[in-house]
């Protein structure tokens, strides 16, 4: 994308005041998004984005400047602006840039840009037809198709030069069902770093049917109970909970700022001994996978919990250097317009030994959670909250009436320590995680889990 001599010149300019290292991140991204609403293509948008960011660091201080102009003047201006954050006056060296190759974690078999837009529209029409076919109570269907191809170049003053392509694809179905005055919604949206071959394994019609069934099922719901009770979290959903409640406080920036409940607790039991947890950016075509992170560190599989014992934190270059550990390849950024920060990739609780049906059968009374609408955590206190988008009562070991308006609230360590059953049925879920104003595509996964006691917020008795 850019000439190596120019990049070296920009890096040298960025190191005019020294610092630990300088880095250039250049990005080109083309994207297509199509929205089908009321069986009508409402919007078909194509975008062409490009830009570059220059970062200079000293300890955990950084200066960052970006521009979406890629000419020499603009890049040198960015280098000068970024280096203004530093106080030194001795220029630092730039090692000769040499390319590093990755394993090709996110190869696309059939690139989305080779598929005519009309075919993409046809997938959305299928979403609409299938969802409406599920029930006459389906009143609204929105289908969203998205693909993008991001090409990134990362070069740094230590000589790294990485050029990687990341293809993304996603089909989302949003369904509204109505019965009298009761309106409920259902959602499904599998995603991957892959080409359109992903849609053979995850056909749009299945996505549509899932979303529609969720919406229609929830029409029968009653207000959720409130108070402490056992909660069985279905496979897939537990990963979202793990990501939010546990993953965020394990990000080294929170730890470094003394804003993490897990600070100083590596080697201690901080979760039930049934919990093995990992963050793994090496899963082929995973929504949160890559060859190199956005600082040019190789992707890794990082063990977070082994039998409930905390193994370590997720690191970027700055925090790893400060803590004297290896980077874990978790420095990510939304785009050239954002400095890298510590992020999760694909965060999973590993499957256990139990039959998931037996986990439910052995629960006398509680709530069964099949869909979580996302959540939020305060890493410093570990307090978290999740909206339940699809939930049911458990009565005498059986999943019975659907409940609405529920959420789960608790503290990370207490809740993870009270997991008393882990199923064998692993499932994944893909989302976009927000932190410090940046969105990052993340995967999460889990088997069925039972939390012995957790607060359910609801309006019912």
């Amino acid at each position: 994308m850019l000439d190596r001599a120019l990049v070296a010149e920009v890096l040298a300019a960025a190191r005019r005041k020294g610092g630990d290292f300088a880095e250039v991140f250049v990005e080109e991204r083309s994207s297509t998004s199509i929205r089908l609403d009321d069986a009508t293509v409402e919007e078909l948008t194509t975008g062409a984005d490009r830009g570059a960011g220059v970062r200079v660091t000293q300890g955990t201080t950084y200066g960052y400047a970006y521009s979406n102009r890629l000419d020499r003047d603009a890049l040198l201006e960015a280098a000068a602006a970024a280096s203004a954050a530093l106080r030194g006056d001795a220029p630092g060296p730039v090692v000769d840039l040499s390319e590093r190759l990755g394993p090709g974690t996110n190869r696309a078999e059939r690139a989305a840009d080779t598929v005519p837009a009309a075919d993409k529209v046809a997938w959305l029409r299928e979403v609409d037809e299938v969802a409406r076919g599920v029930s006459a109570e389906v009143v609204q269907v929105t289908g969203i198709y998205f693909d993008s191809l991001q090409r990134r170049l990362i070069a740094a003053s230590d000589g790294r030069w990485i050029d990687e392509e990341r293809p993304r694809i996603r089909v989302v179905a949003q369904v509204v069902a109505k019965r009298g005055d009761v309106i409920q919604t259902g959602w499904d949206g599998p995603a991957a770093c892959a080409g359109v071959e992903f849609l053979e394994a995850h056909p749009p019609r299945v996505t549509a049917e899932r979303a529609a069934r969720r919406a229609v099922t929830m029409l029968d719901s009653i207000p959720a109970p409130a108070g402490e009770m056992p909660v069985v979290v279905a496979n897939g959903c537990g990963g979202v909970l793990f990501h939010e409640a546990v993953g965020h406080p394990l990000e080294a920036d929170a730890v470094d700022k003394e804003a993490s409940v897990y600070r100083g607790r590596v080697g201690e039991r901080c979760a039930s001994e049934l919990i093995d947890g990992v963050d793994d950016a090496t899963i082929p075509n995973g929504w949160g996978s890559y060859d190199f992170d956005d600082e040019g560190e190789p992707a890794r599989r990082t063990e977070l919990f082994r039998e409930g014992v905390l193994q370590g934190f997720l690191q970027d270059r700055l925090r790893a250097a400060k803590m004297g550990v290896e980077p874990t390849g978790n420095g990510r950024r939304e785009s050239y317009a954002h400095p890298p920060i510590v992020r999760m990739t694909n965060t999973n609780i590993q499957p256990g030994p139990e039959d998931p049906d037996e986990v439910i059968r052995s629960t006398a009374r509680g709530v069964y959670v099949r869909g979580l609408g996302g959540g939020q955590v305060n890493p410093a206190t570990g307090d978290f909250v999740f909206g339940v988008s699809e939930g049911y009562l458990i009565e005498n070991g059986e999943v019975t009436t659907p409940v609405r308006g529920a959420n789960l609230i608790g503290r990370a360590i207490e809740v993870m320590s009270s997991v008393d059953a882990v199923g064998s049925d692993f499932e994944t879920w893909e989302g976009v995680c927000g932190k410090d104003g940046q969105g990052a595509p993340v995967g999460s996964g889990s088997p069925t889990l039972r939390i012995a006691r957790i607060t359910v917020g609801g309006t019912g008795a």
Partner: protein
Amino acid sequence: MPELGELVRSAVGAAEAGEQVEAYADEDRRTEVSALRGEIEGMTFAGSVGLGVRVIRDGRLGYAWAADPTLEEARETVRRARDNAALAEPDEHNGLPEPEASAPMPEIFREQSAAVRADDKVRMALDLERYTVSRDPRVTKVDLAQVGDAVSHVAIASTTGVDAAYARTDAWALVVTLAVDGDETQTGFSYTITRGLDALTWEPVADEAVDRAVAMLGAAKPATAKVPVVLDPFAASSFLGVLAGALNAENVLKGRSLFAEMVGQAVGSSVFTLVDDGRRLDGPGACPFDAEGLPSGRTELFTAGTLNGFLHDTYTARRSGRGQRSTGNAKRGGYRSAPGVGTSNFFVDAGPRSLDELLTDAEGGVLIRDVSGVHSGANPISGEFSVGATGLRIDGGAAGEPLREMTIASTIPEMLKGVAGVGSDLRFFSSVGTPSILIGEMTLAGV
């Protein structure tokens, strides 16, 4: 780089016979400086410019955008938008608005702010952090202490004759504190946004972030109960996004709004008035015209509890018929997105009552200071919600014992009906604003 006006006019010049073309361009320069432990933690300088083009041909709409285009790439963007339009369904309501003059708002651009030097921004961030950690022995560190500002320019032109531009400055300070007592840590957040760096007073932000963290030390989990609740402006503002979605005419037309059939009805209590006003100068969302170039205006959505109508752009106004006009609420998240209905300065109108009066009326209840999970815990269509909350128990007319790990649940209509008092302390957060609000009763879940 071409000048913005030249860029949009050049794109519009690439229109072919029988089609409408609208070009929107924005340029944004922003700086953010954060400080930690007496040092600069991070400093980010941003510069971006981009173009977004709508083409409407035979009632079919296509959109395309490009970052920092040359004039040739701007014309290429028009071609891509045209190709995209060919795949869309025709919709008789698609169409660009005829131009309408909007009064300029020179007050939203402060030359003095745009002229502040980077060194001075660094000093402000360092001062902010140093001051924050000097206020209370239990607050010796911050999670974030940031000062930022933005200078933005917008230009828009169309084949119907729209040709307009404006410039705006914004500045903000943001603090998240950590209060520590023994093994316990609590966090406190505060934020302010003003028209310019030269008008930014950050000391109250630091003081408030310190107070909000310290007040939470020793927090306990309350028992489940139905109690009166006072939402402070931080907590109340969290619900405005759900209201904005339900008052968006696009959602109404598509059957996705809980308010769809309620125009003219007394949905809320008689003390509840909700307004969108793009010309209110003390609101961060002030702008002379919207994302289609139509003048910003004032729309009273609820007056004394009665729902008057919805927020419209040109498309939703045409599709609604009955003489509905755009309320000047076409918005976009920058050049990358086509315009859709959005809010400008969206706020609950201030009432006559002091916070102390509201607390007295909520005896035995809870002052909610923070809610979390609204984006996932609220159903914008049914209006049901259940969100995490922290706050203080109201005892003897004052806020005291801190409470955590609780949820509040209700429905939006019930909450609006239950508004028993509105404070005079209206405050804006980004482009939404609200005073403190007393709700007669809500379900609070804890132990």
